[in-house]
């Protein structure tokens, strides 16, 4: 059964990923490739992408670590705060970019214009990834109390206990959180495209610019390869990290009243971009966007977004399950299946145009791209749950006469259902906010909410900007609502 599942995933990967990417690389290998890599400008882009990824990871960790220690204590609304902190992670990129523009842009709420600065990009990266890092660090932080106490009892000073016991236990979690943040920021597209200006274009933005404006395939594919290699290295490191087994632990003593207020103030500040979005959004703009004549009407974009998300999930669901089942027993499958997280959605979209010219008008292309980018997220949530199932349960079912498929469906699946819905929620949020591949594969009748926002942002004047803000708010609400309905704040992923 695992073999069958593996075969299915490999077949899909071959058609939806390796072949199209191969086509791009084939175009780029050769003279153009050498020319691109001899150009210091592109190395500059690469170095900036590295810097952006590393700085974001460091900043996020330095904020997430103290937060994790605060969150291991009891205080009112702790669960709600925790759920809120992960919300940005599932927000579509144009929404976050617009939120920051509404707060700190040229027409921003605070009157401070940080558009096109490093600071704004880093703020956006921290906003995006803080919840993710917190979710990874928190379980370790919670379990740290017991070993630290033991060290203290054995005579270590608090500093020594932290240095020799706390830190080594935390290190794998710090590493994996840092690597994930790096992974997401290094290959970021929407935020640098909308907030960075030409100076702070990441590799991913550069690839898009090279293709969409200049049709420079060789250079674009060289940069893409550079990106894949770097991300591949990060993923390898990530997979190598093994957490220490931790003793049981529980939440610590309650947080003081002042601490709780301070935390609440922090979250208020943290969500200021979304607040600015809300304050600048006019209900009238939503109405004027509904049947807009100048841009894609909201009704069409909303319908597309919902329809495509549903269809792509139907495709991503079996793929994610098959991949999780196959990856449970095989390291190679585990690595191969992670590949879609490493390649740029922009490149995927472009590869499709090159590899399947006869399918250019068909929706299958777009849905394939969505499913490809979403299924690893679903599987990542499912995999730990599958791995932690005691095999004896399955054996018992088999001994009692169930076929492998039946045993899976009736025994394993119900047990991992919570993890599955969490993964589904994550995949759903990813598809709903997908930007890069949609932008490349864009056809007018396929305009989604994300693209409808981008379309309005590119036009001069106050009215389109307002409509973009209103749409962004709607999309944020939709993502958050659907995510909450499926995940209910359980958050068994990451």
């Amino acid at each position: 059964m695992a073999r069958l599942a593996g075969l299915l995933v490999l077949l899909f990967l071959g058609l939806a990923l390796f072949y199209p990417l191969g086509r791009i690389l084939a175009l780029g290998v050769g003279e153009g490739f050498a020319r691109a890599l001899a150009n210091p400008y592109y190395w500059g882009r690469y170095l900036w992408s590295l810097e952006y990824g590393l700085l974001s990871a460091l900043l996020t960790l330095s904020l997430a670590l103290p937060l994790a220690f605060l969150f291991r204590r009891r205080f009112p609304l702790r669960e709600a705060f925790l759920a809120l902190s992960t919300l940005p992670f599932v927000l579509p990129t144009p929404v976050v970019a617009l939120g920051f523009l509404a707060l700190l842009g040229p027409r921003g709420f605070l009157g401070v214009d940080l558009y096109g600065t490093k600071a704004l990009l880093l703020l956006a990266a921290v906003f995006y990834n803080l919840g993710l890092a917190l979710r990874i660090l928190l379980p370790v932080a919670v379990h740290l109390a017991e070993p630290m106490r033991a060290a203290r009892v054995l005579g270590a000073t608090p500093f020594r206990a932290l240095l020799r016991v706390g830190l080594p236990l935390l290190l794998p979690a710090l590493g994996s959180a840092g690597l994930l943040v790096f992974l997401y920021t290094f290959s970021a597209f929407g935020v640098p495209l909308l907030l960075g200006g030409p100076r702070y274009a990441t590799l991913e933005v550069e690839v898009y610019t090279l293709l969409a404006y200049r049709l420079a395939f060789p250079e674009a594919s060289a940069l893409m390869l550079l990106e894949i290699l770097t991300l591949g290295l990060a993923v390898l490191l990530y997979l190598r990290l093994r957490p220490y087994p931790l003793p049981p632990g529980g939440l610590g003593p309650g947080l003081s009243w002042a601490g709780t207020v301070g935390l609440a103030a922090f979250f208020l500040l943290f969500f200021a971009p979304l607040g600015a979005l809300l304050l600048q959004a006019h209900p009238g703009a939503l109405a004027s966007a509904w049947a807009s004549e100048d841009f894609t009407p909201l009704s069409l974009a909303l319908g597309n977004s919902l329809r495509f998300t549903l269809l792509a999930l139907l495709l991503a669901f079996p793929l994610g399950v098959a991949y999780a089942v196959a990856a449970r027993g095989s390291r190679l499958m585990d690595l191969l299946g992670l590949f879609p997280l490493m390649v740029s959605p922009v490149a995927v979209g472009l590869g499709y145009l090159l590899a399947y010219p006869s399918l250019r008008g068909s929706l299958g292309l777009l849905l394939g791209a969505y499913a490809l980018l979403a299924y690893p997220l679903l599987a990542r949530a499912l995999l730990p749950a599958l791995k932690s199932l005691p095999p004896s349960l399955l054996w018992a079912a088999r001994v009692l006469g169930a076929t492998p498929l039946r045993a899976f469906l009736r025994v394993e699946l119900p047990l991992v259902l919570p993890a599955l819905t969490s993964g589904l929620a994550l995949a759903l949020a990813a598809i709903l906010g997908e930007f890069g591949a949609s932008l490349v594969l864009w056809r007018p009748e396929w305009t989604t909410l994300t693209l409808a926002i981008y379309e309005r942002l590119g036009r001069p004047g106050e009215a389109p900007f307002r409509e973009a803000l209103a749409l962004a708010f709607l999309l944020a609400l939709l993502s958050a609502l659907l995510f909450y309905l499926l995940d209910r704040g359980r958050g068994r992923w990451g």
Partner: protein
Amino acid sequence: MLRLLALLALLAFGFAQEITVLTHSSFSLDKGLIARFERETGLRLRFLKGGDAGETLNRAILTKGAPIADVIYGFDNTFLSRALEADILLPYRSPEVRNLKATLLLDPTFRALPVDYGWVSLNYDRAYFKERPLPKVPQDLARPEYARLLVVQNPATSSPGLAFLMATVARFGEDGYLDFWAKLRDGGVRVAKGWSEAYYTHFTLYKGDRPLVVSYTTSPAAEVYYSEGKYQEPPTGNLFPELAFFQVEFVGILKGTKNLEGARKVVDWLLSKPVQENIPTEMWMYPARRDAGLPEVFRFAPEPLGSVRMDPKAMAQHRERWIEEWTKVVLQGQSPEAVRKGRR
């Protein structure tokens, strides 16, 4: 059942009669004109804005074979060669061709027909320069006191930006243009992604901090036209006709259209007198027809004497290299000598 089939047939028929026109984002025409065309031909027009002129053309190229539209309008002479080489257009010698200005017929194969033309040009804010001296010669722009006042568009992502870059190549030559740009860079020139960002965000007329902007010779007239009586005279003016760049915008029928007849009707319509006379006040370009009259407000938009006209072949041949070299010097901060040395 029969009624259902009839309904389906009607629907299918209705869809077949829709004509999609892919345009750049600045496209605009009078709604009454569009409605009249739809009434008279029974066709339904859909306009699809694909972004900047170059970006729009690339969308058409990337979807070659399964075109997203029937007609493409708005690619200019700087991109003409790319459109022709990509082989995405069908030849059509419209009966209206004989009414067009002969100098605009740049494609002898009639795959790209001129619709309008104009000049990309430097605009300045009159109020800002009331008490201060204007730059006297184009070289002055490179002086720090003026470079800090100028906003240009990135030629890699904007067609006026590309046009202005080409004007500097024509003016300062292959050897000199990079030195000029290096001085602009050191002086603090600002680079915007596209025209609207430069004009509506950074130009002092719209509360920006740059009183010099790359725009069009017709922009001052447009400011008067849209001001609803606020301005009797343009609040902005044109600088340096020798840096103005001649631009022609084309229309073409996309290969793979399912409605060739309809597409041809749209091309004829764009070249017809009523549409041509509507173009100046909608898109602020000059009509390609010889017999089309200009609106009164165009007295504020005289044709620049001694403007730059560049050979389409030269543009086709060097466009990518110029953009690359510009990027290296202006965005990456390399020295012009190093970039010139890198040429083979």
